[in-house]
């Protein structure tokens, strides 16, 4: 099982590495968002510093939509889904493999994005333990929900434009939890941060479980 998960994840990451879509398209888009927020919000009044974690996580959610779309677009070519179905891999292994791949890609993006935010928004990164836990758990949760919806978009041709509407409301708790926890980690708000991280962990667990179960009907249905 774990071997299969890693097999799928490695396949996706290798494809990703070769095509450079993440590095060449999604990451520049995310950096662009960081820039656009600066234009939209007054740079001289400290709004950006105040809102750093919120803006950061909004960008991550947008990037999640793109990465999920990409992760399943590579399966959309004729017969790849059938090949996966016939490969003998358990649907849940395919699902978890996708989640791992999406998580790794997003984590890489987030590291760069944090650095960009630290420089451009003049934010001092601290609270490393909480920040790292938040980043990992929020990303895992977004990937877990995202991968389930990604295959929905794959089954329904023409549903690509629908993915943001389906995915983003579902990720509202992730945005709330991740923003609040990051605010605490960065010292922008008092109050305990770890309950938020725990909520993100529960979110991830619930959607990982649901995704593993529901991927089978999504994949195997003719």
């Amino acid at each position: 099982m774990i071997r299969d998960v890693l097999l799928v994840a490695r396949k996706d990451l290798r494809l990703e590495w070769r095509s450079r879509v993440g590095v060449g398209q999604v990451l520049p888009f995310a950096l662009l968002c960081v820039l656009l927020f600066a234009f939209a919000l007054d740079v001289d009044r400290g709004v950006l510093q105040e809102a750093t974690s919120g803006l950061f996580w909004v960008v991550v959610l947008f990037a999640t939509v793109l990465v999920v779309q990409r992760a399943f677009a590579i399966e959309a070519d004729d017969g790849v889904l059938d090949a996966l179905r016939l490969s003998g891999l358990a649907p849940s292994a395919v699902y978890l493999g996708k989640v791992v791949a999406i998580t790794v890609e997003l984590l890489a993006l987030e590291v760069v994005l944090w650095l960009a935010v630290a420089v451009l928004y003049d934010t001092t990164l601290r609270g490393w333990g909480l920040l790292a836990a938040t980043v990992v758990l929020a990303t895992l949760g977004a990937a877990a929900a995202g991968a389930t919806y990604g295959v929905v978009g794959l089954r329904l041709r023409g549903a690509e434009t629908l993915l943001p509407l389906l995915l983003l409301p579902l990720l509202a708790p992730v945005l709330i939890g991740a923003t609040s926890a990051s605010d605490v980690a960065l010292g922008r708000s008092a109050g305990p941060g770890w309950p938020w991280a725990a909520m993100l962990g529960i979110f991830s667990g619930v959607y990982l479980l649901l995704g593993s179960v529901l991927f089978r009907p999504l994949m195997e249905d003719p």
Partner: protein
Amino acid sequence: MTIDPTPVAPVAPPVDVSPSGRRPAPTSTSSRATRILGALSLAGIVALAVFGLAITPPDAQLGETIRILYMHVPTVSAAYVAFIVTAVGSVLYLWKRSEFWDLLAASSAEVGVLFFALTIFNGMLWGKITWGVFWRWEPRLTTTTVLFLTYLGYLAVRRIPTSVRTRATVSAVIGILAVVNIPITHKAVDWWRGLHQEKTIFGTVDPEMQGTQLFTAYLGLTVFLLLFAWLVIHRFRLAWLTERAEERSLDDAIAARRAEGVEEVAP
């Protein structure tokens, strides 16, 4: 929903008896059951208006605005019932693979979305009186709006042309994910607003309510659950008829193609 195959005793006058000797099939989505349900709902609405607008006194704290909550609270409760029905229909569809559960889930979701829209509408009017503005980031109202958008997505998925089976499977999955999201969003938004808690009695029947106020609150709940049942039955039958009509037009199209083919070959 299957059709009762047993002949019905001709209670209607003989003129109405169709050639098959049975009572004629209804030419709409109405049946005796829905007519009774509809009449009950209507009577309930009248009673609710009398109690909610005239008989009940203004609330000690909320004043006259409690009259909006007589609309707001039952619509949100009925909407949650609707989404639970959708989730149950979705699970049973994935299990039994029967059209009935798929169409029930879809019909229930549509009615639920309507009720959610009304909840938000009434909540905003209540807010305008109480806070002076239409919108505050009140937790219940915020949660409702996020979930409203979630279920708009569900309905949008159902409108994408695809095979009946794929549509049913995909929307069943979304129906399940969306219902799991309800408590999570609830909790997250509650915590998010935890520091700025505003006084509100949104979303539940206030435990301190008494007498005619309490009665009116439960009357409202009953009326909207009856309305929900009536709407869902009609919406389900409409969905059922639409599926049958589409099958028929497809059959006709295939038959027409075949006929063309025969003509081409015949000479």
